[in-house]
């Protein structure tokens, strides 16, 4: 099939893939045709609505199998799984450049060590949680999170080495590019991930917990219970004053084995390794922050220029599927009232706290109702968006069978 793009017009297409991101940004060339930028292509296995292969097929048609840039914002399943599942499709496409966060750079020994450690811990945590059989809300949330971080090797291999002719670049905050990948008139300013020691320290997972000793090379030691002293006594041997009640003993044992916090913090660390790309093209300023969460945002929002930059944004991809801590209040408040439109790729499965309703309301107010969320598109068997205001789409937006388009009006 041929492209449906209109010469001279910018278009952002957000595919509904489930819980995941897949955005195609098409920038018009002078005269005929478009440059194509794919921002992420992934879905969480627990929030898959079965459309990702069709999305890849569609974007192949739309682009004539040519992608000037692929941005893989960070190494989470819900952002890269499509590159593994549709590896053969991508391998056949012509790709100009691949952009990955510096944390994926195989030549960056510090980043490699951190990533290995994170992954090793996630593997160990997966085993641990499976063994405990805990089905509490927190444990289930942690399990889904761990799923998201694992098994992305195939996708990353394709992106790093499997696309013939593609130039792979590892980016970090502070990089400004003019006309990257030969796209005339495009200016890209990379705002995340930050490359300072404080940030890297936050990436570093808590170490040396029970069951979870990951060596410097990333290998996990066997379950390494330490017996600090040879002789321990049973409770019966202790005077009443010096022993805990059996309930207290049990509570303490449970607490000492609750490792889900580690999963939460590693997940946050990975999200914070997201590439945050601020793109200027023509009159449009598009902000693609991946899944940046608090730590990533904080590093550039403190910059005195950030206020002005934010006020110029005309298109905002809402970070991390609209979760609570992925869009600081000052980001929404920093957008010019009615000056920006928003797209949220989200759904309530697998985490029912996502998207955060007050955030959606704030976005609605700030954009003068010019925003869409992907799960408002009805797909058989997929969870519907609760409480979505029904009605005609705002000017510039259009709906397809499993995507939303946005083209600036005028």
């Amino acid at each position, binding site marked *: 099939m041929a492209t449906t793009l209109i010469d001279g017009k910018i278009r952002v297409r957000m595919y509904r893939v489930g819980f995941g991101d897949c955005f195609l940004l098409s920038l018009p060339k002078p005269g005929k045709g478009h440059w194509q930028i794919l921002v992420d292509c992934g879905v969480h296995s627990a929030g898959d609505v079965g459309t990702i292969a069709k999305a890849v097929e569609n974007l192949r048609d739309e682009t004539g199998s040519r992608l000037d840039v692929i941005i893989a914002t960070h190494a989470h399943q819900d952002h890269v799984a499509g590159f593994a599942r549709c590896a053969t499709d991508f391998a056949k496409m012509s790709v100009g450049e691949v952009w990955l966060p510096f944390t994926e750079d195989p030549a960056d020994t510090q980043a490699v060590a951190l990533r290995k450690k994170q992954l090793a811990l996630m593997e160990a945590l997966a085993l641990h949680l499976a063994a405990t059989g805990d089905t509490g809300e927190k444990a289930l949330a942690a399990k889904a999170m761990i799923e998201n971080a694992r098994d992305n090797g195939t996708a990353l291999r394709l992106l790093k080495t499997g696309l013939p002719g593609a130039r792979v670049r590892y980016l970090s905050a502070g990089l400004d590019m003019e006309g990257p990948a030969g796209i005339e008139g495009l200016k890209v300013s990379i705002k995340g991930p930050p490359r300072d020691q404080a940030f890297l320290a936050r990436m570093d997972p808590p170490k040396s917990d029970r069951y979870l000793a990951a060596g410097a090379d990333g290998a996990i030691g066997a379950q390494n219970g330490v017996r600090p002293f040879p002789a321990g006594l049973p409770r019966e041997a202790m005077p009443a004053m010096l022993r805990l009640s059996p309930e*207290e003993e049990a509570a*303490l044992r449970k607490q000492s084995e609750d490792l889900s916090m580690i999963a939460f*913090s590693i997940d946050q660390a990975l999200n914070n390794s997201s590439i945050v790309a601020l793109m200027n093209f023509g009159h449009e300023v598009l902000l693609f922050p991946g899944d940046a969460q608090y730590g990533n945002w904080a590093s550039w929002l403190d910059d005195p220029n950030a206020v002005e930059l934010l006020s110029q944004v005309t298109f905002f991809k809402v970070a991390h599927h609209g979760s609570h801590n992925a869009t600081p209040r000052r980001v929404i408040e920093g957008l010019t009232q009615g000056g920006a439109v928003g797209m949220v790729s989200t759904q309530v499965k697998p985490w029912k706290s996502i998207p955060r309703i007050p955030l959606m309301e704030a976005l609605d107010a700030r954009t003068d109702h010019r925003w869409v969320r992907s799960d408002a598109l009805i797909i058989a068997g997929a969870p519907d968006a609760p409480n979505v205001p029904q009605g005609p789409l705002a000017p510039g937006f259009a709906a397809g069978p499993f995507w939303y388009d946005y083209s600036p009006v005028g």
Partner: protein
Amino acid sequence: MSEPKKPAPAQTIEQGDRLAMAAYRQPQTRPLQVFAFDPSLGRVLGNQAVLNLPYEELSPGPVGAKSRIAVVDYDASNGCYYPPVDLNNPSVLIGSGVPPSEADPHFHQQMVYAVVRETQRRFAYALGRPVHWRRPEGRAEDPLRGYLRVMPHAFQQANAFYDPERVALFFGYFPSEGVNTDTLPGQTIFTCLSYDIVAHETTHALVDGVRSHFSEPTSADTLAFHEAFADIVALLQHFAIKDALMETIKRTGGLIYETVLQSGVSAKGKPRITAQLTEQNPLVGLAKQFGEAMGSRRALREALGTEPNSDDILKEFEPHRRGSILVAAIFDAYFSVYVRRTRDLLRLARAAGQDLNAGDMHPDLAERLAREAVKTANHFQNICIRALDYCPPVDIQFGEFLRAIITADADIVPDDPWGYRQAIIDAFRLRGIRPGDVNSYSEEALRWRAPTHRAGVPARIEGLHFDIFRQERLTGAAFTKERRETAQLLHAFADANRAQLGLAPEAKIQVYSYHAIWRIRPDGLPEADYVVEFIQSRDEPYDPAAPAPSATFKHRGGATVIFGRDGAVRYSITKRLDSADRLERRRAFEDELGQRSALSTFLPDDRAPMNFSVIHRGC
């Protein structure tokens, strides 16, 4: 007290007792050995110190009936207990306690007891009254009710924390990763053997006993305050142990705030022998061994390494980082006063031709400098701890802490020849910590005011008992009766004087805590006051626009009231429950808190109270 020696056969046991009683008086102190830093520093640098603790009878554990400290050595990861140490055993007594050893759990139990007891002693001394641990609800039949339980080997985790609900300190142990030269890979690291960590966690427990509502995360400052205060107390203790100071003084030419030590032999080139290996000044590092294994705590050297600026306070919200601004302010002032107090000594030394940079200081001079450093550290510790009683009962802000410090110190030490208060004010000002509703950084402006500005003559209460010694002696029903009557008296007074005390009309008043405080001024005269926390609270929705019923939080206000000996209100330090401003700030903070938490991404409405366990893990 120790068991009397087995009596000679000719005597009856009773006679033997009487003889023993006649011959020996109860000791004043109990000396116990500890690591001044942590085991990684071995025997160098005055790392092994003896703490002379106020004497109390101890049963095995140790468990102290007076201090209410109970060391309960349960290990959750291995599901067992370790045999308790008996500090009254003659072989232990004869050597100032069990000798320092990583391998002996008895020493671990002794060390946690000693450091907890020492920290508690410092609080009681500075506050001028006995200090209590938080009293948890229920647990009436618990034999350890009212005690702080200390678990030196609670579990295998690179973590140590205070749990306000269980009123317990937990110390973890973990295998080292061995990435540096101080620890072997796989060697077990015990957080309970790090002086800093034990003092830090104990301070959490003590502050929680004095101001129980400070553990509610109601603002960025409140959250950071607990951490900062615990670091301040822990670090000042480094400077209060003379043995630990000497080496650093010798090797920095008296500049104890330098982060790097000079090598004693050659100033240039890498050191070659073990005695010279330690280049980092251990005094300004916090929890070295633990810190290296965890990699998440900011040492004082980092806080001091940052040029003071008024910017960070507007940007840093992570509790440790924000707290380190406060820590740096206090230490800035401490070092400034130390320099002021030792300038004459250094001038004399230079006049006598001593080269202070060579790292070979005359031992007499080092001794004198150490004495000044210790004295100043003790002063600063007293100043900071004493200020707690002058803090509002809830929602502490750094600026209010500054005002509390200045007021409390001026109350006790009216003249201030060494300029302690000015040094503190300057250090806070440089870091942009500004108290609200104060129009200058002058001492006068910063002091809390008597409530006369609200209502002419301060109200006066009749019938408070100022005699703490009498109250200590009361027991059982008489004690309870007097406590209850005092509470009723205070309640009636507060209810009648809401406007003057700054309490909200209507809302219920809770008399949360009340103590007589006795302090000795430098001029030798005792000063008696009475400090009371009045608390008011109500439920407020997180989102006022949300339709009812919506989630709510406890919003609190109230006043700390200090009565003089004559019963007149000297200060009423208020946080108004009915201030719209405060409520709005709290809401904004709740929102921020949710945004920062890794948990809140995936778990809706996870609004747990302050969790020291998570803060300390650096999650």
